[in-house]
């Protein structure tokens, strides 16, 4: 058996080869990651729930398969962590909210079913911003996650627990969800890779809905190869999600790619050190024989305002189901049914969720619908057209993920607008429905910097190829 440190350093491919060669067992692999997660959880708090027994039982079944000489899928025996808004049958699923504090998932999300079919070992559920609303994992009702690269700083959000678990080598890969940057920004802050797939590439069945026209489930992992492996496993049509479709990944690789850099993304507000790191990476990429050209996404500066109308409108409708009547926190002492609604929701939702539900309710209310919602949907059309036009000229677009390095815990939590500006470079990708891959691009001091590679609809293959070159 290899030492525990070595086992938790492995990528999916390396772990798979080790299991197949019987260098170590799936139980040893799971135990190494579980022990690391348990030991560090007080400090980092990546996990809301570590399911040791459950994980070891799954690993045992994989060891039996190996012993019997059965075919071993790439993900068989691979320890994975799951964001707590994705349902795993029989496990608590809280979306980091008091309103779902004791909720037990009654079935598997489609992505979980797919992972289980391939033998992935689920270690537990990771912390997040409450209902995925936040950019720092500080809005979790159960406490903030800390960035394993610097414990004074946030891991980003909302999938901060998943990103921290991968970075701290507490799992080999993880699932998150991305509505406005919630996979890419924490991946960037923690120095790992993360993918927001094309809207419709992955089923959302069994994932707590935040903003249904923007939400996508996607992987976080140590490198782009692993991202691709998990993405291939979870994607595809699903009778339970009418927006999920099957598609072929483009098989041909180009000798060189033409990459666009949007001039609107390198203006005031971006940390000059991050810009320098990305420019250096682009120079290097160009020297490898690829082409880098400046492009324009003229409506980029309106994406954030557009997002906060559309996302909160959808959230106010999606979160209406938490009524204290059928499941979740219920204010049973309330005197009548209306007070059950008011008190269950008033007590159950945290401050950021209430803020967004209020905003969504307001912009959809009588007299304001056209001024806010319809106008935002028209601007969204223009934002998508910007991407359509840009992709006539280039294979992919490279941009920063976050305008800043990971900030300190508590620094922005009382200033919603500053916190919202965290997502200024990630949000237009969700509005347009295109895929985007975040990869690390060097360090500034001890803190990781990252960039994102944005692709055409259903062209994850191209951004994987470019990502593999850029992550080196």
């Amino acid at each position, binding site marked *: 058996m290899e030492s525990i440190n070595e086992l938790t350093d492995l990528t999916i491919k390396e772990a798979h080869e080790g299991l197949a060669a019987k260098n170590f067992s799936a139980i040893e692999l799971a135990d190494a990651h579980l022990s690391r997660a348990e030991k560090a959880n007080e400090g980092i708090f990546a996990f809301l729930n570590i399911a040791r027994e459950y994980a070891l039982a799954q690993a045992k079944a994989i060891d039996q398969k190996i012993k019997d000489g059965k075919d071993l899928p790439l993900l068989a025996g691979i320890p994975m962590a799951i964001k707590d808004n994705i349902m795993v049958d029989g496990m608590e699923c809280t979306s980091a909210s008091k309103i779902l504090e004791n909720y037990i998932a009654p079935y598997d999300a489609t992505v979980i079913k797919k992972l289980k079919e391939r033998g992935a070992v689920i270690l537990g559920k990771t912390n997040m911003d409450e209902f995925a609303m936040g950019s720092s994992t500080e809005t979790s009702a159960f406490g903030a996650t800390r960035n394993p690269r610097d414990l004074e700083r946030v891991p980003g959000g909302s999938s901060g627990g998943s990103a921290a678990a991968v970075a701290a080598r507490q799992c080999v890969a993880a699932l998150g969800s991305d509505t406005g940057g919630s996979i890419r920004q924490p991946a960037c802050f923690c120095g790992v890779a993360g993918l927001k797939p094309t809207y419709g590439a992955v089923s959302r069945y069994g994932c707590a809905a935040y903003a249904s026209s923007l939400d996508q489930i996607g992987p976080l992992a140590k490198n782009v190869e692993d991202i691709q492996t998990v993405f291939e496993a979870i994607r595809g049509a699903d009778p339970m999600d009418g927006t999920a479709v099957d598609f072929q990944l483009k098989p041909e690789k180009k000798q060189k790619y033409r990459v666009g850099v949007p001039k609107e993304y390198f203006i005031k507000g971006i940390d000059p050190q991050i810009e320098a790191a990305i420019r250096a990476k682009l120079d290097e990429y160009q020297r490898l024989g690829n082409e880098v050209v400046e492009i324009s996404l003229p409506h980029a500066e309106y994406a954030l*305002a557009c997002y906060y109308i559309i996302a909160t409108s959808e959230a106010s409708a999606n979160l209406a189901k938490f009524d204290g009547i059928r*499941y979740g926190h*219920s204010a049973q002492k309330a005197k009548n049914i209306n007070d059950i609604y008011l008190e269950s929701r008033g007590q159950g*939702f945290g401050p950021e969720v*209430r803020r967004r539900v209020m905003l969504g309710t*307001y912009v959809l209310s009588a007299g304001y619908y056209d001024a806010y919602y319809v*106008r935002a949907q*028209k601007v969204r059309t*223009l934002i998508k057209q910007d991407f359509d036009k840009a992709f006539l000229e280039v294979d992919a677009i490279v941009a920063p993920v976050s305008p800043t390095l990971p900030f300190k815990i508590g620094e922005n939590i009382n200033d919603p607008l500053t916190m919202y500006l965290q997502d200024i470079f990630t949000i237009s990708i969700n509005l347009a429905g295109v895929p985007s891959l975040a990869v690390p691009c060097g360090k500034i001091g001890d803190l990781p910097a990252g960039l994102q590679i944005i692709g055409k609809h259903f062209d994850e293959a191209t951004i994987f190829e470019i990502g593999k070159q850029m992550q080196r």
Partner: protein
Amino acid sequence: MLSKEETQHIAKLARLGLSEEEIGKYQKDLSDILGYIDKLKEVDIEGVAPFTHSIEVSNVLRPDAKTERTKEELEKLRSQMPQTKDGYLKVRSIFEAQAD
């Protein structure tokens, strides 16, 4: 700036029971955010169609048939209910008794 009454009205529509202090806080927060959102008024949207889907979508159909649930599946759902009676969800009465 949103008024206190407007903020209270939104909380009522959203079915959120909030304290006076919270109403004051959200009155300020929402006003700030709405101020930022006003930026969208700069955009020329003349003749632009509202967005519907980012990808091409088509109708997804299934046979109009009953799906069976096992006892265990139903029990999992029932066990989440705050109050039950004879296997049914129990809800507070929605009409108040009329005083004579």
